[in-house]
């Protein structure tokens, strides 16, 4: 669907992108993640043809952006970081203009705009001037604009920025409803957003791609089987004693009391193997009830910090 090869971008002497490579398959929802200034917006601006790359290729459905700009641009719906809205137009006027700009005939544009306004819940505001809309509605108009012409590839740059929690949920559902029929690329520096929407993730840092994978896979890959979380019911002193005396366990720490008489511990194995079974048996032999034993999952946030060496901004 989308192929990005060796993308390099210089701003004067500054190297914003240092050779970006990735590929999007049909129907994927991909999150482009990275701290501010990692090159996310630059990458998206180049893919959509707003900026020229210093070197490298962008191909969409096998067509090169520079060789067939018109055909390629028809395949992309783009919501930039700041939605490109004409403040002095009404919502409907604006969307119909975008339709005609994308090559629809006036009548087709009218029809399609009506459908899209239904989908994005803009009908009740269709005759309002855009400058009178709230931030959330403006963002929605921006998304509606990207959907016009039914482009198979949607590029959404920070679609949730500046929205309140309810609007974020609405936006998220809207984007999810588009999955399947569209390939979608969303950039964000907020991890939880990406985690809930995207099935694939590309992490960028400092103008480079530092990790690419399925979201779940990425979390699993960076998980550590040596670290367990154990929740046990029983006498606290006795649990301490068992953990201290077992040869399987290198180190452990007490986390807290989850219910009355039920305690949570973090346990680090002495070997490289998975010792969940052994831990379970250890307690059951001592007539104690184990509520759960889990390998400690790394959240996307931890993965992010691990690969970029930075704290994500929340």
């Amino acid at each position: 669907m989308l192929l990005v090869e060796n993308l390099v971008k210089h701003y004067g002497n500054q190297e914003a992108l240092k050779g970006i490579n990735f590929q999007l398959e049909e129907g994927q929802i991909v999150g482009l993640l990275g701290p501010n200034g990692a090159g996310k917006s630059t990458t998206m601006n180049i893919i959509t043809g707003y900026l020229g790359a210093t070197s490298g290729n962008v191909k969409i459905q096998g067509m090169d952006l520079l060789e067939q700009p018109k055909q390629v641009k028809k395949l992309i719906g783009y919501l930039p970081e700041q939605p490109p809205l004409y403040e002095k137009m009404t919502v409907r006027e604006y969307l119909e203009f975008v339709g005609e700009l994308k090559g629809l005939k006036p009548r087709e544009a009218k029809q399609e705009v009506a459908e899209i306004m239904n989908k994005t819940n803009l009908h009740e505001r269709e005759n309002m001037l855009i400058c009178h809309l709230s931030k959330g509605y403006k963002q929605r108009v921006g998304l509606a604009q990207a959907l016009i012409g039914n482009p198979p590839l949607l590029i959404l740059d920070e679609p949730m920025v500046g929205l309140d929690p309810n609007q974020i949920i609405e936006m998220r559902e809207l984007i999810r409803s588009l999955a399947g029929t569209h390939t979608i690329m969303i950039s964000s520096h907020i991890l939880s957003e990406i985690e809930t929407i995207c099935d694939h993730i590309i992490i960028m840092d400092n103008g480079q791609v530092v990790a690419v994978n399925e979201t779940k896979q990425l979390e699993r890959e960076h998980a550590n089987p040596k670290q367990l979380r154990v929740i046990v019911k029983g006498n606290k002193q006795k649990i301490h004693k068992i953990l201290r005396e077992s040869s399987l366990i290198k180190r452990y720490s007490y986390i807290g009391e989850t219910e009355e008489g039920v305690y949570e511990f973090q346990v680090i194995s002495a070997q490289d193997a998975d010792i969940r079974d052994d831990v379970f048996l250890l307690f059951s032999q001592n007539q104690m009830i184990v509520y759960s034993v889990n390998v400690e999952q790394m959240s996307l946030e931890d993965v992010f910090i691990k690969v970029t060496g930075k704290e994500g901004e929340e």
Partner: protein
Amino acid sequence: MIAILKRELKAYFTSMQAYIYLALFVCVTGVFFSLICINYGYNDFAANVLSNFYYMIFIYAIAIPILTMRMFAEEKKQKTETLLLTAPVSPWEIVLGKFLACFAIFLIGLLIVSVFPVIIAVNGNLPIANTISGYVGIILFSGCMIAVGTLISGLTEEPVIAVIVSAVFGLFTLFINVIVAILPNGVIATFVFFGIVILGIAVLFYLDTKKLWISAVVVIAGAVVTVGLYFWKTNWFQYGLTNSLNWLSIEKRFEEFINGAINLSSVVYLLSVTAICLFVTTRVIASRRWR
């Protein structure tokens, strides 16, 4: 292109811009008409009003710069530039759409003030041929100046700078005769003038590409052409400075129309200047991608 043209026209009329412009245009033209045609009884509307020197200063140094100044600046400010540049339209369609919308507003104004020659025709004797050639002239000349304004607006992000530069350019074309009269002549003056022009172009190239060798090529090529001209057309070179400026004078071509002559070479000249300005604007828009 049609979509952009339609939107631009709508934008002119939803903001106050078109109304203010048209009111001002009609009002000022009316004042000139009543002062010159009605008061003194001159019957040639094109020659006495449309090409009156003070009236031309008003149109080309005030009215048209106001009309063109916001063309591209507004898109930058609202970030709608992204929409146009990522839509499946070429820079030509963007520039032409904007230019034609602006030109249309100008023509609407011209159409409204056409009641004045009609008033003359009804109540007196209107020189029809002169009026027609005068109208053709003013339409071509204004198109040219609007194209210049389009280019200036595409070059700068600030509407204020755009309006000032366009106004200065308008004044320059109108006062070129006066300027030429006080300029020195002779071989040295021509060399200095060509030198400044060539250096200016070289600096522009350098700012655009940041490559010194391109500027060096421009300087060397310019020097060769200048020296070549000196040996080849020594007579012309004697008055090179004034000759070049006179050739550049858009307004000189316009005068012919007012005198009732539709000269093909002048038509071609004015259309070419318009086309070149619009072409350079498309290059400016396209080059934004390579910042």
